[in-house]
């Protein structure tokens, strides 16, 4: 209760439920939200769901009980939000989604979704690869965690794009769980398989798996980036370093630094402005041609 009494007049309280801290990308995402809240003097209630949707639902209920002004969260999965969002609506608390969308029948349950489009990311990766390989590639794919929204959508976007290129085929595809260790282990198995010698391109659903695969390629005596062209998604610091080193060819940015945009949206909404249902984040595609030491030094995550 002491916390409440310190609250200044007019200060807004925002409850934010984060998925967890499963990657460097996510940590940067959290950091961006927190520092932006501090900068703007917002009273931020932060809850870490440790990867469980149940925890997120509970956190949102707690926010409702604590009567916060605004709720924002990055959903663990897309489904299952209808009941709790209805509750928030009844309590009159506006909800903002970040990073991932939700599947609800009534889209008045949330104000706006601020984040990237995973399908678009997959499409861009495909587009870059098609250009780089002149529409001819035998591709190995490292998928994200089975059943997760980014894994499904990034696969969908990529496949949809290369469907137009008959000579681009995915000859190997496995889940690498979004981790470096799995990425490496799985790619070793790829290389050793009967089709292994044919692989000349790798599409990884995130940078970490690509970084693991790069090690596997090197250990197998091949040159990553040359013998096998590699494109991945996220754009974390280590990936940029790998591009500089010539080991990674391209990373499609998925920008975690959405704090400013989220709080802009919140403030606009509270000021009575109409907001679009979807606010796209600015994201780029970074390949060997763009990334220089300067670009790397400017990266915040």
């Amino acid at each position, binding site marked *: 209760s002491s916390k409440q009494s310190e609250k200044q007049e007019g200060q807004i309280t925002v409850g934010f439920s984060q998925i967890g801290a499963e990657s460097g990308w996510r*940590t940067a995402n959290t950091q961006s939200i927190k520092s932006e809240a501090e900068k703007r003097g917002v009273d931020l209630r932060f809850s870490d769901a440790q990867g469980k949707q149940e925890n997120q639902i509970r956190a949102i209920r707690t926010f409702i009980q604590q009567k916060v002004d605004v709720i924002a969260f990055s959903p663990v999965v897309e489904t299952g939000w209808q009941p709790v969002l209805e509750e928030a609506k009844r309590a009159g608390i506006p909800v903002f989604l970040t990073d991932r969308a939700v599947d609800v029948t009534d889209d008045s349950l949330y104000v706006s979704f601020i984040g990237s489009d995973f399908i678009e990311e997959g499409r861009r990766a495909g587009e870059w690869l098609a250009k780089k390989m002149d529409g001819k590639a035998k591709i190995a794919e490292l998928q994200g965690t*089975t059943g997760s929204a980014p894994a499904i959508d990034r696969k969908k976007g990529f496949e949809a794009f290369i469907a137009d290129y008959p000579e681009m085929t995915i000859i190997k595809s496995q889940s690498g769980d979004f981790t470096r*260790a799995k990425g490496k*282990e799985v790619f070793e198995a790829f290389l*050793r398989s*009967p089709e*292994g*010698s044919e692989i000349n391109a790798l599409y990884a659903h995130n940078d970490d798996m690509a970084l693991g695969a790069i090690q596997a390629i090197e250990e197998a005596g091949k040159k990553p980036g040359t013998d096998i062209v590699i494109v991945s998604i996220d754009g974390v610091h280590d990936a940029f370093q790998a591009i500089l080193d010539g080991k990674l060819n391209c990373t499609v940015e998925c920008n975690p630094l959405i704090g400013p945009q989220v709080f802009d949206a919140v403030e606009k909404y509270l000021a009575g402005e109409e907001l679009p249902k979807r606010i796209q984040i600015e994201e780029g595609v970074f390949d060997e041609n763009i990334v220089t030491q300067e670009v790397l030094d400017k990266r915040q995550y």
Partner: protein
Amino acid sequence: METKTFRSRAATKIVWPVLALALLILVNVLLDARSFNSFTDAFREGAFLHISFKNGYPSGALIDILNHGSKVMILALGMSLVIATGGVDLSVGAVMAISGATAAVLTVRGLPPTVVIPIALLISMVCGLWNGILVGMLKIQPIVATLILMVAGRGVAQMITGAQIITFHSPVMEFIGNGRLAWLPLPFPFILVLIMLFITWVSTRKTAIGLLVESVGSNPTASRFAGVRATSVIMMAYIFSGFCAGIAGLIAASNIKAADPTHAGLLLEMDAIFAVVVGGTALTGGRFFLGGAIIGGILIQTLTTTMYAQDVSADVAPLPKAIVVLIVCLIQSETFRNKLSKTWRRKQS
């Protein structure tokens, strides 16, 4: 003659997991044969049994199994002792993360491996000591006692790295998980397994520790009455398990040349327990079989590698896994074997 039968109990216990392993490898060979349309190609490039020499070092699916399975095998050694005392250690995955995180952060700070490795292992042993105190002295049930560190340990690891993946560059540190010795060209992690197996075997079977562990696990009250210091035996088992987890954590970090506090060793505790139980050690405590645990570790890694090799998609991968686990259990179950041989005999007559 009878003396011999009883002395070879360890050997008979190991027969079944070895048999299961052989069966699994056979399945791979058959699948290969099907995809190549011939049996003669069992060793050709791309086949499961194929071993090639790259830069003079052997490589192939079998080698990969030894390489990647080494973490589970080392964990299983420590877990064997803990399970033999009648406990279980769920925190090994989290301790791996702590060990890797410590090593990575210290390496990035520029400390030499001679300092980094001992510190990481020491911290892991402190984690083991913590479990040992909860279980041995405070008598908290092992599953919950170690669940505490399983939950909190990951947080500690994240704190150490600031919830980032810390990439490091250090030839020695990278060697642990990826190196090859010129005179013994197996993956270095597997050599570590052999060393650890030897150390564990000597320190349990060539001292009285093994006997004391087994007696505490089999009947704690009677052991206490016979003068066995059950508390210190239990604490020692958990400390050793922490130590093993520390080594496995170094291997995991070294493998990817980075510490990933969130994913390192995730869910590996289950694999380790599985390996121990497959190897013939009962979860209720008592007799333990180190060789069996190693075979169990190889078995579970072979299973994983098979999934990759046979292009089983990740979402249905647990299905064959379930079948293999069940078959292994069936083979191990004496009751099942008896029933089987009875029906067999009935058919014969």
